[in-house]
Structure formats: structure tokens, C-alpha cells
């Protein structure tokens, strides 16, 4: 039996990207105010550093040869990098990089302290099951609305943009309201935006069906303690899976033998064959 340990590499990676995006956003604002800014740091807009900007620009790029307003070539580059990572390892962007995901996760620690074992179990399973597909509806709406208008309409609703720009006039009341809702919901549910509303998570979630490195559970050594189920922020029943192909998996690796699984070599991210897809 192994002692459960904190996923320090993930925590440090999340912290790094959160701090980086925050500092870039502040730097951009300093420079726009005519101040000197932080010399060694980029002053790019958050739109230029968001890989989802690449996704929403595909249609316009293919038909007109230009990007959606406020989106730049860097978004395309990041889109390809994140897509490569997702094909190899699943949606690691969501669990290791995305600052909004990190922010919700940190807020969730407060909820976990308040509610203990009840935390992340407030939504009835029946409703939850259908709500998980809401993000695909949002994805289709975003792609359609941006496709026909050529404008970054999603910015008006985007809690990620609001989080790192709430002090600027660029942020709409609607996005601040959605951010506030996300903050409150994070106290009850882990990663509510990721689970129910994130259109980019919806895209990346599909790679769980074809990723090269899969989360696999070795049935012969599993002691059915359900530790993996309890650790999963997305409420996936890992103990009932041989290979996790759930579209909600974010590849956080919390369920693995490297982290919470008490038996070595039982739940792992691996290319080796084995496990049964349920």
C-alpha cells in the first residue's frame, strides 16, 4: 500500500501558467496605460494566447483567409500544440495549463473544507448526466455565432477573459456575472465551468476517444477501494472502467497509482494494451 501524495508536478505547472497569464495581462494593461511595463514579459492580449481562438477562426481562415477579429496567428500555433498534446495524452491542457480550470480547482479546496465528503456530489446524477452535454451545445452555438459574424462574440460571455481583465472596460457585465456564478458554483462542484459549459473542453474531451496514452485500470491487481473514483474531479467512475474513454476526463492523473491508487502499476497513463473499455 502506498501513501496518497499531492501531485506536485501538476500543481507547479498550474501555478506557473496561472502566474504567467496573470502577469502578461497586467503587463499589457500597464503598457496600454503608457507605463513602461515588465520588459522581459510578453504584452500580448489574452485572445492572442488562447488556443480556442484558433478553433473559432478555422472557418473564417478557410473561407476568407483572415482570422476572427482580435485573434492572431499565435492562437493557431497554440491550437496545434494543444491538439497534439490532446491526441497524445488527452485534455491535459484543461487540467495542467488552463488558468480558469486552476482557479476553479483552488476554489474547490474551500468547498472541500466546508462540505467534506459531500463536496462535488450536489448535482443529482440524472440531471448531471445530461448537463454534461451542455458544453457541446455551447460549442456549436459559439462556432455558429462567430462563423456568421466574424466577431469574437464569445468574449462577452467568457469568464476566463473576465477573470484576467476584470479591472478593464473591455469586460462585459454578462461575463462578470458568469465568472461570479462559476466562483460560487466552484464551492459546491469541482470545475463547474469545465464540466457543464466550456466549449474548448468539449472539443478536447473528444480526444479521450482516440488518445495514444490512455488511463487504464489493471483489473487483476485492483482491490476495488474506489479511491480513484473519489479522487476524480470530473466524477468519472474509474473503478468501473478498464480504459477511461469518458469525454469528461481531463487527464489530471489524480486517479493513477502515481497519485491516489494505493496499488502500484494498477491505474496508469500508458500505451500498453490491456483493460476493458466500459
Amino acid at each position, binding site marked *: 500500500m502506498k501513501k496518497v501524495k499531492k501531485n506536485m*508536478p*501538476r500543481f507547479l505547472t498550474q501555478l506557473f501558467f496561472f502566474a504567467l497569464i496573470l502577469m502578461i495581462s497586467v503587463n499589457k494593461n500597464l503598457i*496600454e496605460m503608457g507605463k513602461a511595463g515588465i520588459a522581459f514579459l510578453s504584452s500580448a492580449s489574452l485572445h*492572442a494566447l488562447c488556443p480556442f481562438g484558433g478553433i473559432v477562426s478555422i472557418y473564417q481562415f478557410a473561407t476568407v483567409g483572415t482570422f476572427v477579429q482580435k485573434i492572431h496567428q*499565435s492562437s493557431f*500555433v497554440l491550437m496545434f*500544440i494543444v491538439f497534439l498534446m490532446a491526441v497524445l495524452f488527452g485534455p491535459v491542457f484543461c487540467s495542467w495549463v488552463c488558468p480558469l480550470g486552476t482557479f476553479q480547482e483552488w476554489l474547490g479546496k474551500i468547498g472541500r473544507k466546508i462540505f467534506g465528503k459531500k463536496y462535488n456530489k450536489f448535482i443529482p446524477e440524472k440531471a448531471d448526466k445530461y448537463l454534461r452535454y451542455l458544453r457541446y451545445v455551447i460549442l456549436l452555438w459559439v462556432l455558429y455565432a462567430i462563423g456568421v459574424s466574424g466577431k469574437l462574440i464569445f468574449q462577452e460571455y467568457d469568464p476566463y477573459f473576465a477573470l484576467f481583465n476584470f479591472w478593464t472596460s473591455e469586460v462585459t457585465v454578462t461575463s462578470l456575472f458568469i465568472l461570479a456564478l462559476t466562483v460560487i458554483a466552484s464551492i459546491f462542484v469541482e470545475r463547474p465551468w469545465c464540466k457543464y459549459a466550456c466549449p474548448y473542453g468539449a472539443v478536447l474531451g473528444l480526444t479521450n476517444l482516440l488518445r495514444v496514452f490512455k488511463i487504464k485500470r489493471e483489473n487483476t491487481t485492483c482491490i476495488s477501494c474506489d479511491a480513484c473514483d473519489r479522487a476524480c474531479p470530473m466524477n468519472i467512475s474509474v473503478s468501473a472502467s478498464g480504459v477511461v474513454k469518458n469525454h469528461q476526463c481531463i487527464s489530471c492523473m489524480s486517479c*493513477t497509482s502515481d497519485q491516489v491508487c494505493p496499488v502500484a502499476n494498477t491505474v496508469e497513463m500508458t500505451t500498453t494494451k490491456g483493460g476493458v473499455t466500459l
Partner: protein
Amino acid sequence: MKIKSWAMGIIILVLFFGGIGATSALNLWSTTSTKVPVKFTSGQNAGSYNPADIRGSYTFGEVSSLFNVPLEELGIAFSLNDVEDVALFKNKDLEARYESLKEQGYEVGNGSVKMFVALYSGAPYTLEDDTYLLAPAVDILKAQGTLTEDQLKFLEEHTVEFIEENTKSAITKNIEAPVEPAKEDEKVVKGNTTFQEVLDWGVSKEEIEQALGGKMPNPLTNIRDFCLKEGIEFSSIKNTLQAKIAP
């Protein structure tokens, strides 16, 4: 093959920064729009940059180097004496800086920079009625002595004086009744308007093609970009389309 957490963290950082580094080396990494304005293709200004393509995202430093207007004069023209680094000041920030003027209907923004640069450099430019210049900018232009009678008359009616100490009571001089500034949701053809928006505002494809004198491109195309590319005067297309938009 198995992946552990530490390896995953390292792989993510390597893929991210390796990808950014590689695309930077190939000149594919760009976090801003290409800041190269279109050039005049005919006339005595052929080959030089067209001030009509100056964007709100341009900094004064970029405008200065692209159009050979001394940075110091740009700073004086737009009264940026309190700005730490004028070269980093963006055109689009003029609107916020002179918000009190905008509230009174006298907009000083990116259009003002275009107009100033065009008149300063003697480039062809259609003066637009809803664009104003600050008094120091007009003084600089007059001192050059190259303005035509019509331009001088236009400037007399489009000069605005800004009093910093009392922004709410900024006074204006020699100006006509102001043109109401456009609000975000108003149906106004601007520099970033696409053909799709004009279609959405009730103008038919046939009417647009009539105004263009040719086929309309993909509706997602920016009207100003299209006009500049095709050598069509944006302001006249803008006015024609604006007239067709239902109030």
C-alpha cells in the same frame, strides 16, 4: 510505455515552449496583427503607405516610423505631454483619454490620427465629418503651410480645444454642430464593419454590389480592408451603405 506526473509536467512545458520557439524561428508566431498598412498603388503617392489604413492598435511609435511623422510632433498634436512613453501609446486609447469630448459629440480617436497623418504628409485622404482634431494638431498642420483652402476651411470647423484641468467642461471652438458618436450596438459602418453586418442591418447583397460596382466578396470580409485592397475609396462606400441602412 507509461507516463508519470513529473514526466507529464516536463513534456507539457517542452511542447508549449518548444512549439512557440520553433514557430518564432520560422516567423509564424505573431501575437498582433501585421502592422504593415496598404500602399497607394497609383498617383504621385504610389508606393507610400496609405494613412487610411492606420489601425487603432498601432502605437504612436509605429505611426511615426511608418509615416515619417516625428514622434514629438505626434505627442504635441494629441496633447500627450503627461504620457510616460508616447511611442507606446496606442491610437485606440485616444477615445478613452478624450472621453469627455466624445460625450459632447466631438470624437478624437484613430480617425483623428489618420487625418492628421494624411494632412501632415500630404497624402490623398477623404476628410470625414465626424472626425475632429485637437487645436495643437491644427496649429502644427497650419505651420507647415501646405494645406489647401478647402482643408483649412474643414479644419476651422473641426478643431476642438481640450482643457485638461476640467475635462467635463472641455470647450470647443469654431465648430459645427457635432456628429453624434456611434454606440457599440448602433448600425454604423466603421473601420471594423464586415459585409455580413451590413447584410444583417437590412441592406441587400444587390445594394452592396451596386455600391461597390462589382461583386461582393465573402460576407465575413472587412469592408475597409476590401476597399483598400481594391483601391476603392472607403469613405464613399461607407456613406453609400450607411444611407441604405434603415434607421
